[in-house]
């Protein structure tokens, strides 16, 4: 295999998939860092976001790209509502109870999508998506958009967390929630803010997944495993780790067909997760919560 077909058939799809996993994994890692529990409704929240894009673009005639910000806000508000309705009162119980609850929320979100849109495969209307040839590299326009927008989102999130007052408050609470409240930081506000960001990131990951593959009710559940694999591989609580982990899982998944049957491709993330737990359970960037 020559280098350009390796790039065309494995590296580029891997980076696209990896960027989508990275967005999801950042959300997973934020939930771990602030709320300190595993969030299994994450994938289905992404599905919800993807369908929100469909809803807003279909009802208003906007392009899916323009509908994304609205869908991101909708998914964020949905996440806040879910937290308020189902998770808040579990906060004093062991965290695993919230994780169990999130499994139920996953089922509920999926059922909502299936009630309103059914189980058929849909797609976004973005016009023709013919690959363009860039010096022998075949790249589709929406692939460029995906990578550029993912980078943009990550940079924006990084700036928010490093330099804004509430971003720092999130980091403070992730670091030491008791001390944060001694500083007068209202933990409930930080939690709501975190869910807003997590919901928006979910919507973005769902949208980009739908843009590059299809929009269907199980799309999010199917990326739950690689998303968690990316978050744990990168080191739970580490955003830079989630990005690197996402890219590794995405690229490995695309390359896995070189060694295993394509039916098992979707298990790549699972295998990486097992290897990470066996070899380096704290992740590549030593995660702080284990």
């Amino acid at each position, binding site marked *: 295999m020559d280098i350009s077909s390796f790039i065309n058939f494995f590296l580029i799809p891997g980076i696209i998939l990896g960027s989508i996993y990275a967005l999801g994994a950042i959300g997973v890692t934020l939930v771990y860092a602030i709320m300190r529990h595993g969030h299994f409704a994450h994938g289905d929240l992404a599905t919800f976001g993807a369908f929100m894009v469909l809803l807003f673009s279909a009802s208003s005639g906007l392009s899916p790209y323009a509908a994304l910000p609205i869908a991101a806000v909708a998914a964020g508000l949905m996440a806040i509502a879910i937290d308020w309705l189902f998770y808040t009162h579990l906060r004093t119980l062991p965290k695993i109870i919230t994780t169990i609850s999130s499994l139920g929320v996953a089922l509920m979100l999926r059922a909502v999508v299936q009630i309103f849109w059914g189980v058929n495969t849909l797609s976004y209307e973005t016009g023709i998506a013919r690959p363009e040839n860039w010096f022998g590299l075949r790249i589709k326009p929406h692939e460029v958009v995906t990578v550029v927008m993912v980078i943009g989102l990550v940079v924006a999130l990084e700036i928010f967390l490093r330099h804004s*007052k509430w971003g*720092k*408050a999130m*980091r*403070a609470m*992730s*670091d*030491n929630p*008791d*001390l*944060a*409240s*001694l*500083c*007068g*930081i*209202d*933990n409930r506000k930080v939690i709501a803010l975190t869910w807003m960001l997590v919901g928006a990131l979910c919507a973005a990951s769902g949208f980009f997944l739908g843009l590059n593959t299809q929009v269907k009710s199980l799309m999010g559940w199917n990326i739950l495993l690689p998303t968690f694999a990316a978050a744990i591989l990168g080191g739970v609580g580490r955003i830079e780790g989630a990005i690197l982990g996402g890219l590794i899982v995405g690229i490995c998944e695309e390359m896995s067909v070189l060694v295993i049957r394509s039916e098992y491709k979707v298990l790549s993330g699972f295998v990486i997760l097992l290897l990470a737990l066996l070899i380096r359970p704290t992740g590549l960037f030593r995660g*702080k919560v284990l």
Partner: protein
Amino acid sequence: MTALLTMSSISGGYGDADILHDLSMEVGAREIVAIIGPNGAGKSTAMKSIFGLLTIRSGTIVVDGTDITGWAPSRIVRSGICYVPQVANVFYDMTVHENFEMGAFLRNGDYSDALERVYEMFPDMKAKQKALAGSLSGGQRQMVAIGRALMLDPKVLLLDEPTAGLSPKYMEQIFQTCRDIRNTGVALVLVEQHAKQALRFADRGYVLAAGRNRCDGTGVDLLNNRFIAEMFLGA
């Protein structure tokens, strides 16, 4: 002297069992008060009770005329009282500078003057402002923790064993810092294991035993009290 902080007849604890029994204490303006007593006397618990970190069953806590009994910690901070816990008192994954900024979280607008004062008080931290707090030594972390608490310009500062585990050199430095803080008009309350040293520099002291007031008085009086010396100071 009108008291800035008054605890009257506090009883309370973490679960069903009370740890504090009918505990009373007063702190006046610009005063340094040391709380001493044997292990398990409830010194740290007394301090936490002021900050709303345990269940108070009876009694009241008044800061500068405001009854704060039963308030949540994030609200108590607004009443002009700040607290430095004994352990985990800095944000390890944040820089020294960010720790100070977090201390000023409740301040709206420009707080560069407060930052400047803190850096003046801890000149060593000026050079370390970009370092992660988790990478500092125990003594330096204590300075970050105190500096963080000073960012809100509190009227009363509560320090829970600020010298625990520090070398004598750092201990002296922390005590000196406390005097400096007092000279800026802040009252301090310290829980101390090093009873002798603490009484030597505090204005007044409270001796606790089994969650109750044992005795109190000026630092010098307590130091010279034969009974206290035998019981608690190991003299």
